[in-house]
């Protein structure tokens, strides 16, 4: 499935990013410099690039944690412009952060239930059932009553994935989900992500885990200096990159 890359011209992309620009510190620091990207349903897109190239900023623009200076972002046909749209879109777009950002004052199951109860207005029993199902799925049902501080990094990140899934999103965004983990915990998180990809979740992943990219990605997007340099299927990108910059970067991270 990973190999089939099709430009689905007849289909409307679920994420449409058009010529987005973003600067920080009143224009002093450029982060995104006219980026356009389309992501289709059930596609897994991995974004790579050197630090400071704007990968995370681009990802965060998709659910408006960063507000672009100009350009247009459309998710599932809804343009992200005002506050009313944004909460609707955020329900459909789950995000997993590098630093997990679990709620430390709630138990694991409390973390999974909070947004279901408050945003989706589900009953307590219904939310708990969904939460336990998801904990089963990520492989840590026995940790339901523990607090995030009592879990290992890998377990915390799996809880964070389950928390995002509890809202039953259409799209999952991953912002360097394994960068803050000890090496021996990376696999357990990647396994969960692989499973998600196989189930057909639309995913945009900022990560340097090339193993994951090879196994699950439909496309790899290489970014540098706020621009998309290259956008190809994994085989093509790894074997014969079109651009010199991509070559240099890959040689650095593939050792």
């Amino acid at each position, binding site marked *: 499935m990973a190999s089939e890359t099709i430009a689905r011209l007849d289909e409307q992309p679920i994420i449409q990013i058009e010529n987005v620009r973003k600067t920080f510190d009143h224009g002093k620091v450029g982060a995104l410099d006219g980026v356009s990207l389309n992501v289709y349903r059930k596609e897994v897109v991995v974004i790579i690039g050197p630090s400071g190239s704007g990968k995370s900023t681009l990802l965060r623009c998709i659910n408006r944690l960063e507000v672009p200076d100009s350009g247009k972002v459309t998710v599932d046909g809804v343009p992200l412009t005002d506050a009313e749209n944004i*909460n609707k879109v*955020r329900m459909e777009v789950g995000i997993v*952060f590098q*630093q997990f950002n679990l*709620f430390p004052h709630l138990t694991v199951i409390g973390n999974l239930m*909070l947004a279901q109860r*408050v945003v989706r207005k589900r009953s307590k029993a219904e939310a708990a059932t969904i939460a336990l199902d998801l904990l089963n799925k990520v492989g840590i049902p026995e940790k339901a009553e523990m*607090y995030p*501080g009592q879990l290992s990094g890998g377990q915390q990140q799996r809880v964070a994935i389950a928390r995002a899934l509890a809202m039953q999103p259409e799209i999952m965004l991953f912002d360097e989900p394994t960068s803050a983990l000890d090496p021996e915990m990376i696999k357990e998180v990647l396994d969960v992500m692989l499973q998600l990809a196989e189930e057909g979740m639309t995913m945009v992943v900022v990560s340097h885990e090339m193993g994951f990219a090879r196994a699950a990605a439909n496309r790899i997007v290489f970014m540098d200096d706020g621009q998309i340099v290259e956008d190809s299927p994994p085989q093509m990108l790894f074997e014969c990159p079109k651009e010199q910059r991509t070559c240099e970067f890959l040689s650095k991270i593939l050792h």
Partner: protein
Amino acid sequence: MTNGPSEAVGIGSSRGRADWRLVMLVVSSVLILAGYALPMFPNRITEAVTRYSLGATRWSSFSVLVTEQHYNQNTAPLNQELDSVAIEVAPVTAHAGSGWAWLAQLLAPRERLGKFFSLVVCLALPVIAALYMLAWAWVLLRGKRDTHEQMIVPGFSLALLTPVCLWLAWQHQFDFSARLLGLASAALAPRAGFYLALLGTLLACATAFSYRRDTHRALFSWWWLVLATALLIWLLTRFRPQPYLEIWNFISDGIVVTLRLVATSFGLIVLVSLLGGLGRISHNRIIYGIASLYVEIVRGIPLLVQLLFIWFALPQVFDGIGDLLLAISPGLEGAAAVFYDLRLNPFTAAVAGFTLCYGAYGAEIFRAGIASIHRGQMEAARSLGMTPLQSMRFVVLPQAIRVILPPIGNEFVALLKDSSLVSVLAVSDLTRRGREYMARTFLSFDTWIMVALCYLVLTLFSSRAVEYIESKMRFER
């Protein structure tokens, strides 16, 4: 059968020492229980006659304790002073006044229990301590090390309380009346059982103390300081009723006013602090500006000046507004009248002043507390589709509360002390009652020592309470 003692070897470093202390535990509890079976307080007051300076006489007879007589002494007939008290003593018949007999006598009629509740507690606690020591010895014998470690601190606290309780139980028969005690202490002196039980409690103290190295928890908590201060007040009123009991009776309603004032103000302060703190982190410039202006201005003016302004100058401001309304249009007479009639009572003025001033300090505490929560928490909550308000309510504030609690607790204690400033506003709080008493009697030292001790008990107690809540709210990050 021989299993028990051999297991006990596991406790403590050497067998001899461990067994010795175990025996001490058993002996101390046996002493207490035996003391309760022997005569403790064999006599009691049955009748008392109180005579006053202009010839008034009051008779009282008692079935158990002398509560009414105490009341008689403190409320002399108009313009008369207590002249003398004559009492009659009779032996306690049941079990020659043993501890059990007293307990049985007090517990038999249910309706009395409320009245003599403190005596029942004083008499019952040493018995409970004795049973605790027996249970402790049993735990040691069974070699249950974890339970033993958990029993050390409560055991020591209980043992330390019991000698005081026994002594208080004796004092109780006179219902803390100094005059009666002076007259009757010889006739009502405690007997062998009392001293035996006292010995038992002291032994229990020593034994519990000797186990202190088996636990990591602190043997003495700062709660003892609160208790000691409260005891000091009681001792003063008990042994120097002139003037301390009188001062206490005079200022005690001031304590109620102070507590009412502080409780009301603090509720409002938390509310204003929260709103102010949210205003200070708002991205809306107008809200931010208003909140900041409030904080900056109010923090720059002394609390006393603010209170004086609200109490003395605000009526003038209201009048001015009334005049202004009338000047604009005579048709606004009704609205003007509202302002002319608007007068705060002293209590409301004080609450308003405290809320205004402490709200500004509290706003900064809330702002700092909310700012200390990592930005990622807000982002995570928002990314799940929660509105800013929901994210604040369910994610940020519950975490910020833990950061905010210690400084807000400090504010509470500071407020308790600063509440003494309202004595300038004709609020009869603790300080003002002290001043009134001093103005009547010129007993400056005694009055202010008493007032200071009262404040100390309140502040020490609140500090401990805040600490306790804090420890309950900790969580792993």
